[in-house]
């Protein structure tokens, strides 16, 4: 009987593996056929290669840009701005949420303002930021942060308030101060929510930074896109887009790994 169970288990494992392999195979073939079809379509002039470029041209451009090192400058500028904007947005948002949690009065007073700020498209504030903070990377980082700060505040504050009241009761029976309650219960209990806002904020920070670079910059992937558009070099535009896609995915994956590491206990 035991033998039979073991063989069944092995069969089950190998069927799981087979399924995973099938999924991966289809995923890869979608990727490959997308790029091959694109290449083919551009070469046969089914689509205008001036507008849609072609993978081989993008590849050549990438190699040249890597050769002269210029792509690293642009990518690192954008990456730096995004990381900083993302961390500032999450950090300040969480801090604001803590203030709102601290004082019921402040949270009630600020409620309508938060709703207005949240519904407002933050990128529309771009020109104001540039005027206020100067046409440099400060305003771009501010844009990256601003776009996620209000939604982080709202989500994290709601999570703070929804911590199980019985946990708070335990703290109260020990005579805990508000500060202790926050440190020992509220913050650790909502860590999963804070981390999941990180995931959303990664995406938002990219939006803010790229729009910021569109508006004002001499460096960065957003700058390359808008420059390529202006000189009608769509190979450059598409190459920048691909780099952004790769970097954004890597960042998201890193946050996901971080999440798994930190939430083992929940």
């Amino acid at each position, binding site marked *: 009987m035991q033998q039979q169970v073991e063989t069944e288990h092995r069969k089950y494992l190998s069927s799981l593996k087979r399924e995973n392999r099938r999924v991966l195979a289809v995923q890869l073939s979608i990727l490959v056929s997308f790029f091959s079809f694109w290449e083919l379509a551009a070469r046969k002039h089914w689509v205008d290669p001036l507008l849609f470029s072609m993978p081989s041209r993008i590849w050549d451009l990438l190699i040249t840009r890597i050769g002269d090192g210029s792509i690293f400058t642009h990518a690192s500028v954008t990456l730096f701005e995004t990381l900083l904007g993302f961390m500032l947005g999450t950090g300040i948002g969480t801090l604001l949420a803590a203030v709102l949690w601290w004082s019921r009065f402040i949270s009630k007073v600020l409620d309508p303002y938060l709703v207005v700020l949240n519904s407002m498209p933050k990128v529309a504030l771009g020109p104001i930021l540039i005027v206020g903070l100067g046409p440099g990377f400060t305003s771009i980082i501010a844009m990256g942060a601003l776009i996620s700060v209000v939604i982080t505040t709202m989500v994290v504050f709601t999570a703070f308030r929804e911590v*199980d009241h*019985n*946990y708070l*009761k*335990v*703290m*109260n*029976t*020990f*005579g*805990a101060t508000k500060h*202790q309650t926050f440190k*020992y*219960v509220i913050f*650790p*209990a909502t*860590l999963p929510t804070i981390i999941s806002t990180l995931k959303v904020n990664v995406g938002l920070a990219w939006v803010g930074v790229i729009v910021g670079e569109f508006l004002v910059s001499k460096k960065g992937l957003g700058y390359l896109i808008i420059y390529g558009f202006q000189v009608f070099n769509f190979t450059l535009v598409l190459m920048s887009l691909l780099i952004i896609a790769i970097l954004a995915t890597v960042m998201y994956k890193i946050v996901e790994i971080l999440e798994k590491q930190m939430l083992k*206990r*929940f």
Partner: protein
Amino acid sequence: MSTLQLHDVSMAYLTKRDAMLALESISLTVEDGEFISILGPSGCGKTTLLSIIAGLLSPTSGHVTIGNKESKHAKANIGYMLQQDYLFPWRSIEDNITLGQKIRGTFSQTTKIEALKWLEQLGLADKKDLYPNQLSGGMRQRVALVRMLATNPTLMLLDEPFSALDYQTKLKLEDLVFQTLKSENKTAILVTHDIGEAIAMSDRVVLLSPRPGHIHRIFELPSEIATSLPFEARQHVHYNDQFQIIWKEMESLATTS
């Protein structure tokens, strides 16, 4: 010296729509080392009463004294056990049981060792580095008991601490809690809606009437039942008589209200 005194305690809940009287002139004296149960149908304000005793709520009128002090100023002497363990999942068992000490500022190497001794006494010494989600429900409730004992309270408040456990675990834990509290001569107040549990564990049973809760009757249990372990008390020849008496009294409450 009596540990706990309630003087004419009343409590009203205020909401936007109305004000509801939850408790009405409750006066009660609990002696040092005594174990009493507060029994009553759901919604009679049992938990409210416990919260008032713990100093978590201020009564609308009347006052509570523990020793000679108002309960609000004597928080350090009270341990509170809830229906579920409410251990903090992100802290190890050791960190959970020393949390009360840390909050009260009494944490030291000595008090930590005391806490770990309690853990050992309840048979969980080898679990100290695990996390709550690695323990069974009964074990977790035992850890919650240790967390409470680790602050060395003189008064223990038990808010239906066995209600979320399966029957077998519940019986075992009743014995364990009873033994532990008796050996330390702790005063305890147990809130429950389980007549059998109230009889098995306590010296006196206070029956509350529903809405607004006031003391309907106090049952003094025969000492043979009061002093024996809960599991043995349940086998006692007089256990059923006591059960019948309290049952009938509760029934009469249900029909008159």
